[in-house]
């Protein structure tokens, strides 16, 4: 169900980012390694490598850059990759027919990193990238000479569901546009990150408050009514749902996850709200349609949601299962896999020794556990 490759090197691994079918390991010195689909140059220029690799698929980890050319941040979308360097230049590569590269109407595919059009970001600014499916967002935080902070979020890509702006004057946005901005004298009110689903996105500030949304958010999610007063939230999005972690939210001091959106395959965490989880969460992340937790008890890794490809671990024992999901059948009339949904939480890895740092990452029906 899972493999356990060991990485040793001069720097620690910082994160793992996943596109539709390509994956990038990011070291904390800014050196990155990629594997997977490279049919559109989303990782490397196909003309620059040889060997046993198929032209379209990089098998095994390939260095994307060197220590002399470190990346400050990098994210993946469906078939594209976006990177920012330490001079705050933003680049993209791969393919995006909805404008996901941000390179203009005439450049929808690139085998090399090309500078995204029109983003001139001051070198001293804080820059964070976010991407999902067919969109990319760049968050820029700056402090001016008067002590005022500005948060600007630029976005591009699909606007089919108005995930960038209203009205939908265009289905595709091929150059960065400002989709959200605030000015404040309070650093904690600046935007901390952008969280993106397939057709929507949310903005979360450094207090951990949700401060805005764009696009086709789940109909039951009324953030201005239900969440405006809540802070210290940790928000993650699957393609079709929003998941909010609150630390020490129960009277007993346990953590709580509240979900909104599509739950046909167990994606909604405790849909009926009847289960006592008594959990303390160390790390929390999301794949395309599944969620991943590192729990305090022995660094246990557990998943929920759609797990048809083993991404939520082995099938759950029937005992205690309270799945509310709809079972599906294939067009061939075969019963669908019983591991289509993983609910309640399914233990994927029973634990790691105290002292290990365990972090989790998710992609399209895959789960990554980083143990250092």
């Amino acid at each position, binding site marked *: 169900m899972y493999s356990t490759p060991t990485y040793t090197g001069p720097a620690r691994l910082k994160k793992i980012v996943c596109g539709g079918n390509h994956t990038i390991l990011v070291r904390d010195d800014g050196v990155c390694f990629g594997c997977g689909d490279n049919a559109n140059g989303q990782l490397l220029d196909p003309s620059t490598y040889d060997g046993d690799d198929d032209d379209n698929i990089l098998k095994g980890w390939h260095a994307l850059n060197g220590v002399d050319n470190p990346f400050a941040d990098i994210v993946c979308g469906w078939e594209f990759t976006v990177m920012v360097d330490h001079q705050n230049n933003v680049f993209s590569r791969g393919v995006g*027919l909805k404008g996901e590269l941000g390179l203009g109407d005439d450049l929808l595919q690139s085998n090399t990193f090309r500078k995204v059009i029109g983003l001139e970001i001051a070198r001293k600014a804080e820059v964070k990238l976010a991407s999902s499916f067919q969109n990319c967002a760049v968050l820029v935080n700056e402090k001016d000479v008067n002590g005022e902070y500005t948060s600007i979020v630029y976005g591009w890509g699909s606007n*089919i569901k108005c995930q960038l702006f209203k009205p939908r004057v265009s289905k595709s946005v091929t150059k960065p546009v400002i989709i959200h901005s605030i000015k404040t004298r309070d650093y904690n009110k600046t935007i901390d990150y952008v969280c993106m689903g397939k057709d929507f996105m949310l903005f979360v500030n450094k207090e951990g408050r949700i401060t805005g949304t764009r696009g086709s958010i789940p109909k039951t999610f009324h953030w201005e009514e239900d969440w405006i007063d809540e802070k210290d939230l940790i928000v993650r999005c699957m393609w079709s749902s929003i998941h909010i972690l609150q630390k020490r939210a129960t009277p007993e001091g346990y953590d709580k996850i509240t979900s909104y959106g599509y739950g046909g395959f167990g994606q909604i965490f405790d849909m009926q709200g009847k289960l006592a989880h008594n959990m303390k969460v160390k790390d929390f992340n999301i794949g395309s349609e599944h969620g991943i937790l590192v729990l305090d008890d022995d660094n246990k890794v557990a998943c929920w949601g759609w797990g*048809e490809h083993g991404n939520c671990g082995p099938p759950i024992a029937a005992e205690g299962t309270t799945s509310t999901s709809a079972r*599906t059948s*294939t*067009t061939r009339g075969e019963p669908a896999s019983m591991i289509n949904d993983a609910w309640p939480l399914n233990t994927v890895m029973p634990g790691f020794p105290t002292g290990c740092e365990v972090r989790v990452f998710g992609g399209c*029906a895959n789960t990554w556990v980083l143990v250092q």
Partner: protein
Amino acid sequence: MSTYDEIEIEDMTFHPELELFTYPCPCGDRFEILLADMLDGENIAVCPSCSLMIDVIFEPEDLEEFTAMAGTDSMQVGITA
């Protein structure tokens, strides 16, 4: 039968050479439905790699422009390297 999502035909990618519509699946593959099947009234696109399916939202007249494009070798959207 429960489907994963409802997707409008305008959100899908049409491949004229294959006479096929596709849309990304959360498993990493793509949902597929043939133009010919849609002309016959089919509206369920299936993923060849998993059990998920989507409802394709369209009106019969929506297919006219794609029928005219079918069989050509050109991409729906021009691609520049």
